[in-house]
């Protein structure tokens, strides 16, 4: 982790950038979603994009990866304009999903290994190094013992960890994660926070779209807050206020995970807390 970036708010202009959005505009069906967003993300930074539903935070992230086209402005990845960027093996993307599986059953290992699609040549056989990378990714998210299980048999939180392991399997150095904590119970949230901390310590760039900081509060070096498609805050993570500041407050619905052994009462919070929970809507 580079201390110079802490709260630098993108002022470290001499450092190489993992992502640069320059006056980015995007729209869905003519409705503007991004209204001129400019953000520089230096290499090695752990950054959160925050904002209410519909603020454009997910769209910004997807635009940075070329999933959503810009109507005007520019995106650069590792210094290269998006259109000409070819170093996709450096990018690990964790989409916002409730489930990791498709319509056909697939094992945890199959899904995780598919994350190597950008690093492996066509018609190549799986090498020892490929397999080791998958093992390592599974180990990082703590799912080594579930490698042969069908993904659809795992809990939501475990499936989210599978998606993160898939992003890890190609050994990228730049991660983009869209609400990795949504719909994940408290214990899995801590496991995820641990995995993200290890990525940061390894020197990776980590960009997270989050509904709230939650257990990631200590990991995040910088927060960009969007509102109506514009940056309204860029710098230190904002202090949580009111209801959200209460320790242990959860926006998600934490539920005991039947697949995790011994869900201790401390993991799921008090019963009173669980009753008035807010579930983040997906934008």
């Amino acid at each position: 982790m580079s201390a110079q970036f802490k709260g630098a708010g993108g002022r470290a202009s001499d450092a190489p950038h993992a992502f640069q959005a320059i006056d980015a505009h995007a729209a869905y069906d003519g409705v503007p979603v991004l209204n001129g967003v400019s953000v520089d993300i230096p290499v090695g930074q752990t950054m959160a994009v925050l904002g209410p539903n519909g603020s454009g935070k997910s769209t910004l992230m997807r635009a940075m990866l070329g999933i959503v086209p810009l109507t005007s402005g520019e995106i650069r990845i590792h210094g290269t304009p998006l259109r000409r960027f070819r170093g996709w093996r450096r990018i690990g993307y964790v989409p916002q999903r409730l489930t990791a599986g498709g319509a056909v059953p697939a094992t945890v290992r199959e899904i995780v290994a598919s994350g190597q699609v950008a690093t492996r040549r066509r018609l190549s056989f799986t090498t020892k190094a490929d397999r080791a990378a998958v093992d390592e990714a599974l180990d990082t998210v703590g799912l080594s013992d579930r490698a042969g299980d069908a993904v659809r048999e795992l809990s939501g939180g475990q499936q989210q960890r599978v998606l993160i392991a898939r992003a890890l399997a190609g050994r990228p150095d730049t991660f983009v994660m869209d609400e990795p904590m949504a719909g994940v119970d408290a214990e899995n949230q801590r496991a995820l926070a641990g995995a993200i901390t290890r990525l940061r310590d390894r020197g990776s760039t980590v960009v997270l779209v989050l509904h709230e900081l939650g257990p990631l509060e200590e990991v995040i070096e910088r927060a960009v807050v969007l509102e109506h498609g514009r940056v309204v805050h860029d710098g230190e993570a904002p202090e949580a206020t009111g209801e959200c500041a209460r320790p242990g407050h959860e926006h998600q619905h934490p539920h005991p995970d039947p697949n995790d052994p011994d869900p201790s009462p401390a993991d799921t919070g008090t019963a009173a807390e669980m009753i008035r929970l807010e579930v983040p809507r997906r934008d």
Partner: protein
Amino acid sequence: MTELLQYEFMRRALLAALLVGLVTPIIGTFLVQRRLALLGDGIGHIALTGVALGLLTSTSPVLTAAVTATLGAIAMELVRVRTRTSGDVALALLFYGGIAGGVLLIGMTPGASNATLTSFLFGSVSTVGEQDIWIVGVLAVGVAVVLAVFGRELFVLCQDEEVARAHGLPVRFLSILLAVTAALTVVIAMRVVGVLMVSALMIVPVAAAQQLSRSFRVTMGLAVLIGLVSSLGGLTTAFYSDLSPGATIVLLALAIFCLSVVVGGVLRRAGRRRTPEPLQPVPGGPADTMPQTDRGRVTP
């Protein structure tokens, strides 16, 4: 069995059924994964127009069907992306255009009758000629090569198109490649089961294999096995019992599906008994206050 192989037409028919049973479930696995299970049906209808075109112009119907089905598949992919029509509506457009075009053109063909139409609608594996076998063989090799080279990328595409894009994969090219490969597969299978049932050989073996497997690779392998058993078994049964080969093949595949639903259920129950899971809420604990959700699902 020896009696079966005495006839030239049966040897050709068995060879065609073998190729079809081998190739269709593989491409079907990708289509099911991509939730485009009915794509084969749409393409089959388009292929009928191609067949009629071949009859009208006295060229090989399999060849013209291959060309028309390929163009139709590309058109459907473009319609889906460009007009933001949902996949099933785009398919419906294909269905009706294809079948209407086919019926119209066959009506215009001198010497073609309802029997000609029926043979393509429901299959006529016993009339497969030497030229057809060659075309079917070459198409099957082509499909196999495409899957060997692009299989890994197609898996990611069918799993999650957005992730495929974020990996820098050529999403549009791969989508069209999959649609075209499906189109060629449909044409291969068309002679055996007919355009109306062609999709069954792509989908039913996969649906059956899903019941018994937890991995993509195993599902595909099992689907191929089931596809081969139904196509070869169905054809043989039809020969000895004087039944319609296409219908026999499809019904056999459906019977295997029913069987695997039962077997899969028994296997899953046995598996659950072996590894008991702490599903019971702890009395008085916080789990008591939670609504019980399905395993592996998040219900907000």
